């Protein structure tokens, strides 16, 4: 328990220390949203969702890349404190917070600039969009946590992070887009259940695989 507390406070203090980095990501989200708005001010609901996911994906990928970007000495200390799988879980939680914040910021900015799609203006529909977006963002975090660790071990190249992540994130993107399309159309929860379950599966699968593979990846 003490170990988890130490890891959690370390992750939080690292985030606070690098808060200007995260302000940059939020600024990136705002600039990307404004750019999209200036090019296509009145998109159809499906284009609205597609653009939202593109902005969330690229903004959160930048945040995830920094997650495993720590000095080697710090890793030596952390490796004595926790197992690689535990480090993976803490880093995934850290990335999940970033992706959720990014998704929330993107949703608010899209609501501000474009407004919500007509069918999604009730409170229940907004809740459904929030659920699909939140689960999708968490699923992104699980996959990106693993690819971020891999990229950091291979020399911390941001282009490599994107090369490894984008193909692996495609299943999540497609499932999440389907879930959010149904949510934006204010479909019944029973209709939404399968894609939401798909998003949960795309969250659980990389988490399970990452937990098993992380000790091999992290071995010196």
């Amino acid at each position, binding site marked *: 328990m003490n170990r988890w507390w130490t890891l959690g406070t370390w992750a939080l203090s690292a985030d606070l220390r690098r808060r200007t980095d995260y302000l940059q990501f939020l600024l990136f989200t705002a600039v990307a949203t404004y750019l999209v708005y200036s090019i296509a001010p009145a998109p159809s609901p499906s284009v609205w969702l597609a653009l939202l996911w593109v902005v969330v994906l690229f903004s959160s990928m930048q945040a995830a890349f920094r997650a495993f970007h720590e000095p080697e000495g710090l890793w030596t200390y952390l490796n004595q404190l926790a197992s690689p799988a535990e480090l993976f879980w803490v880093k995934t939680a850290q990335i999940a917070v970033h992706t959720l914040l990014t998704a929330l910021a993107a949703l608010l900015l899209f609501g501000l600039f474009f407004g919500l799609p007509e069918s999604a203006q009730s409170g229940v529909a907004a809740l459904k969009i929030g659920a699909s977006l939140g689960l999708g963002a968490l699923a992104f975090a699980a996959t990106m946590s693993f690819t971020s660790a*891999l990229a950091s071990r291979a020399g911390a190249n941001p282009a490599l992070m994107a*090369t490894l992540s984008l*193909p692996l994130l495609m299943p999540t993107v*497609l499932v999440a887009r389907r879930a959010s399309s149904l949510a934006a159309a204010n479909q019944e929860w029973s209709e939404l259940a399968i894609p939401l379950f798909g998003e949960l599966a795309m969250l659980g699968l990389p988490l399970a695989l990452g937990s098993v593979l992380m000790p091999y990846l992290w071995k010196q």
Partner: protein
Amino acid sequence: MKNGFSIAWKTAAAALVSYSLVAGLMSPVPRLFILNETIRNLYFHVPMWFTMVALMGVSLGYSIGSLRKPGISALESDRKARLAAEVALVFAFLGLFTGMIWARFTWGAYWTNDPKLNGTAVAILIYLAYFVLRSSVEDPEKKARLASTYNVFAFVLMIVFIGVLPRLTDSLHPGNGGNPAFGSYDLDNGMRAVFYPAVFGWIGLGVWIVELRDRLARLSK
């Protein structure tokens, strides 16, 4: 004894592929609306994908072996995983091209926004990323370890993407979205007699190519 078995399966693979090439073009096929003679593509396109998945499975097996073994053995397993992935990628491109030609004559376009097609394109991208990862690391042991972990992670997600997701969504592709495939009315017993030998023959040929490339790699060291 081992040598005899090796000769037997390689001869069988060559014979099955030769038979499927000739019978695939010459044997009678059912006359189906729209499909017409394009149904013969089943003998060429589908075995490419089966071979690709089988070889990616071989690559996965060697990657798991590489993670579990120490030192030189890990590097040897990783080399075999790489070679299997390379040959699998060739079969993936062959499957993609044969599918595109078929799509042009039945769907009217070389490429459509279909989940199955997108899945296969992403599967190819995943394995291209595997090679990019390999080329970005210099140290052989580190390269083997990183590439093997990525291979295991990527294979599972790829199988979900090409095997599970298209079945949950609407797709034009046979075998998906309620469309008939080779298990249903459009594959009679005459076609099965060509299709299954083609699948086993091409898989055998793929494994043989991997084995030959591995021998070549060992000789060139």
